[in-house]
């Protein structure tokens, strides 16, 4: 009788272990406030807190992995991690290769930011963007001269030192930079690209996608997602 009980407990335990799968979360770690590496060397930011909460709700054990933006999709496909949670906008181009969960961040504008008083010409000037972003694709398609950098930080540096007339990037990445530039950098335009930000998963990983979708829905319903958005992006952010 006793041994039967222990066996029963063990089964319950092992089921519990089996469902708490390890999911490796791939992020860039250089895109504050979405994701960045804080001074304690940990992944931090909106997506860190969102991801941990999603994993908790989906009953998954999550491990964070930092990967260069350039190769973030190939490494997902190669199975080096299981999700991309790196401020990645949902686009048709990417959707052909990987799958996205529903958006956890509503479609937000991208800002053009230039030096104050520089009178940047967004149609024919020099616009900086990070390589492989939707913004880079957008600039290439307009008449402007695209200049590409590997990291988002370098695009800002290019505007500051006059290399580029303006930078095109997500408004939420640029907003704190504008705020802390002491009036040197200003927003000079905006454009809507993409369908919001979602988690990227492999097309074959439908189970994981469903779990994450369910977790995102539950966070949208109880308002905890909105709370996180306001906490990281300020009161002006679009919420669900």
């Amino acid at each position, binding site marked *: 009788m006793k041994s039967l009980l222990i066996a029963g407990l063990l089964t319950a335990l092992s089921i519990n272990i089996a469902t708490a799968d*390890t*999911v*490796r979360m791939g992020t860039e*770690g*250089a895109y*504050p*406030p979405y994701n*960045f*590496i*804080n*001074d*304690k*060397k940990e992944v931090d*930011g909106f997506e860190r807190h969102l991801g941990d909460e999603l994993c908790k709700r989906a009953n998954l054990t999550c*491990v964070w*992995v*930092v*990967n*260069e933006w350039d*190769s973030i999709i*190939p*490494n997902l*496909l*190669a*199975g080096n991690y*299981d999700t991309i949670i790196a401020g990645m906008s949902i686009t048709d181009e990417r959707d052909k*290769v990987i799958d996205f969960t529903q958006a956890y961040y509503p479609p937000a504008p991208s800002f053009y930011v230039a030096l104050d008083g520089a009178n940047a010409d967004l149609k024919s000037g020099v616009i900086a963007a990070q390589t492989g972003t939707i913004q880079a694709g957008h600039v290439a398609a307009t008449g402007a001269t695209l200049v590409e950098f590997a*990291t988002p*930080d*370098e695009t*800002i*540096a290019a505007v*500051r030192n006059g290399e580029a007339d303006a930078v095109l990037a997500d408004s939420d990445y640029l907003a*704190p*930079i504008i705020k*802390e530039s002491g009036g040197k950098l200003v927003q000079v335009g905006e454009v809507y690209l993409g369908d919001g930000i979602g988690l990227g998963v*492999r*097309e*074959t990983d439908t189970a994981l996608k469903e779990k994450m979708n369910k977790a995102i829905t539950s966070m949208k319903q109880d308002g905890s997602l909105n709370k996180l958005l306001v906490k990281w992006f300020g009161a002006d952010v679009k919420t669900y």
Partner: protein
Amino acid sequence: MFPVCADPSLLSGLDWFSCYLTTPKHLAFFESFGLVMLLIAVVAPVALAIGFAAAVASRSASPLLSLPGRGYIALARGVPDIVFFLFVPIALDQGFEYLRYLMICPDQPDGVWQGNNFLVCSAAKLPLSTAAPIWHSVYGFGLAVISFGLVFGAFAGNVLAGSFKAVPIAQIQTGASFGMTQSQIFRRILVPQMWVFALPGLSNLWQILIKATPLLFLLGLQDIVYWARELGSSKTSIYAYPHPDWRLYYFGFLLIFYLGLTAISEVAYKRIMARLSRGQATLAGSGKTGLRGGV
């Protein structure tokens, strides 16, 4: 690190800096210098072994051995190393996983290539996705060692093949006239003698190896370049220690590191060469200081 650093926003001047430079992130930066040194230390013997094998193979009488040996040595001369580093690690990774797939789950329903994906069953994955993060780092480091070893093995093969040829033919003939077999000549005459001829080339190779280490970050390792870029980039107040763009200083530090490493290697090389040349029938060994002269 220090209790003073609990609230960085209150700090200023020297305190701020001493706290800033001892954040865990900075410690990781300092540790990554150790990673680079470890890589050099591990790759050097690996590349030497691969190169030795390739050089011996390229001298073989059988084309089955000499052709691959020569082709391998020539290939690395024709292709920029950075191109190798961009796809050799991925190829290795997929190769290993494919082998494990054949061993562990060859009856996977959809095969390994599913559209764009290269996926093996989770039991065959390297390292397992449940493995501790340290094993992922070790595996990444291992791939880097093999990739560097393959590229520099070809370079070393080039140097060693040249120094085999530099051993005076008379010595080999003498060995043969004593009735030594081919393998005896190889072991007792060729190999002990060639090292002196190989040393200048190998020392160059060592210097090339040192200077190839910034390419480590291409392999996805968090090396000194990764951390210099990450720490140096400008930080808004979302970070505990906000600062403007300091990459110039961080890269300046890397520059000094490499210059120092080069200088130390040069001194060490001169000492080794002086020791090895003692008693050799070369100009350096006979005490003459070289061919200096002229106008």
